[in-house]
């Protein structure tokens, strides 16, 4: 008898069987596909696993090799100066956490952390705050004077803080204290205890990163800004929460008037930072954000940029949005940070599964790069895979 596979005649039976078996095969394959792409339990339980190590190697090489670094920085700055700055921040924060988890890494990452911090501060000093802001920052007047961006102050202070947590550096102690003084002064002057990142634009993302920097400063320098932090959370609960979703809004004026409602690319990072300030509030926000923004399709996790009740545009913050499922690249990446912060392995795993499908990752010489992403996207994922030790250490209390 001929093998059934080798029979090739065009018959009505083959046509009928094709109509039946193709959908059946799709029904069998599509719900199972995520199992092949899911990160291993070791990746989620004992980070940093192979994925984090590969990404760390890629970024370390980028900052060790001046030619690669210049090429990458020039490329990312062509699209958005903010992304250049944020890629630096997330990478430094990731290295800080990686070195806190594995002290043997410290001699290797500390020089790179210092290089990035020094270069960033030098650029800001030489070219002013606009070097890392989008062009519209020059189009309207700042409310608070002299003009400063909380976006820069908060992230730079946190970079210095995490570097100091790995190993103290007196030069950064002074510089970080100065930044925190600016942060507290300007946030204290705002009607809703928030300061501008752009002219008359306060961002929840930047204000919560700044709060985390203040908290890290308290831990490192023995200061106590707990009354301010508590007051800030009370104010946010009362004045900066969207009534429909209960989620923190993403941007508002210095007077507290809302500009944008809750936004994925803001809320996930805010949750991560607030976890250090008020854990109950952060967990409540996480539960709400997950319900409003997170979806799973056949095992692939993805996050929307805007809740259904507050439809917003696709913009530089949302990144590319995949129509149909409303998958926002930025929101999905930052959701990994919130999921990792809240110990939600299932959600983190499903988001990484999606990254494994659509990220076009490839490893060369032990360096993992997701080709569909860019430097800031990769740095965000790396941070999600390494975070934990810094917040844990601060939460345990005591002094470094």
């Amino acid at each position, binding site marked *: 008898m001929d093998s059934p*596979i080798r029979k*090739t005649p065009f018959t009505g039976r083959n046509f009928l069987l*094709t109509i039946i*078996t193709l959908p059946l095969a799709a029904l069998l394959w599509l719900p199972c596909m995520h199992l092949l792409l899911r990160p291993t339990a070791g990746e989620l339980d004992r980070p940093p696993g192979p994925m984090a190590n590969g990404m760390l190697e890629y970024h370390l090489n980028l900052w060790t090799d001046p030619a690669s670094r210049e090429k990458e920085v020039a490329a990312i700055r062509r*699209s958005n100066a903010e992304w250049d700055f944020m890629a630096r921040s997330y990478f430094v924060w990731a290295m800080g956490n990686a070195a806190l988890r594995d002290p043997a890494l410290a001699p290797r990452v500390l020089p790179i952390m210092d290089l990035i911090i020094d270069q960033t501060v030098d650029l800001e000093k030489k070219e002013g705050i606009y070097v890392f802001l989008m062009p519209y920052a020059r189009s309207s007047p700042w409310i608070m004077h002299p003009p400063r961006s909380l976006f820069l102050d908060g992230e730079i202070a946190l970079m210095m803080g995490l570097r100091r947590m790995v190993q103290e550096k007196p030069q950064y102690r002074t510089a970080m204290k100065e930044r925190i003084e600016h942060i507290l002064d300007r946030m204290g002057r705002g009607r809703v205890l928030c300061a501008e990142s752009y002219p008359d634009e306060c961002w929840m993302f930047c204000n919560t990163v700044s709060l985390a920097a203040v908290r890290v400063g308290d831990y490192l320098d023995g200061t106590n800004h707990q009354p301010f932090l508590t007051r800030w959370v009370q104010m946010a609960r009362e004045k900066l929460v969207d009534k429909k979703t209960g989620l923190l809004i993403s941007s508002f004026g210095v007077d507290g008037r809302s500009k944008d409602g809750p936004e994925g690319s803001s809320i996930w990072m805010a949750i991560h930072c607030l976890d250090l300030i008020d854990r109950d509030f952060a967990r409540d926000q996480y539960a709400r954000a997950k319900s409003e923004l997170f979806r799973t399709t056949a095992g692939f996790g993805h996050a929307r940029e805007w809740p259904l009740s507050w439809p917003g545009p696709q913009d530089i913050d949302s990144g590319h949005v995949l129509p149909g499922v409303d998958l926002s690249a930025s929101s999905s990446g930052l959701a990994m940070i919130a999921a990792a912060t809240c110990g939600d392995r299932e959600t983190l795993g499903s988001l990484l599964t999606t990254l494994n499908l659509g990220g076009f990752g490839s490893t060369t010489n032990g360096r993992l790069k997701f*080709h569909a*992403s860019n430097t800031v996207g990769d740095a965000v994922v790396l941070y999600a895979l390494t975070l934990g030790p810094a917040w844990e250490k601060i939460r345990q209390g005591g002094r470094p």
Partner: protein
Amino acid sequence: MNPLLRYLGAGARLLRSSLLTPAGKLVAAALLAAAYLVLHLAGFSEHVGLVMGTAHGGAHLGRATIFLTAAYMLLYLGFMVISPILVISALLQAAVNFGWDWGLETRQAGEAEETAPSTLER
């Protein structure tokens, strides 16, 4: 008719008819995988971010590179989604064909036995 169109038409008919058979499905799945592998080894994954617009600096890319990178991305999806579906479909269809033919042959053998004259009658 233009000879090229004639050949294309014949190719399409052949593909359509072969895709209905288990072997044709396996060949199609293998072709998708092979085409993806060739473009992957040729390094087209490097340009994905530039073509998608997530990375910048793609102004220097030629039209052929953009086209082949887009093809690479489609072939990747084909390799991940379509190829396994074709393989599973081929296996299911082969199993049904096997069962069908086996059933048919068993029935025919039974009928032949029933109609064959017994030794006594002879």
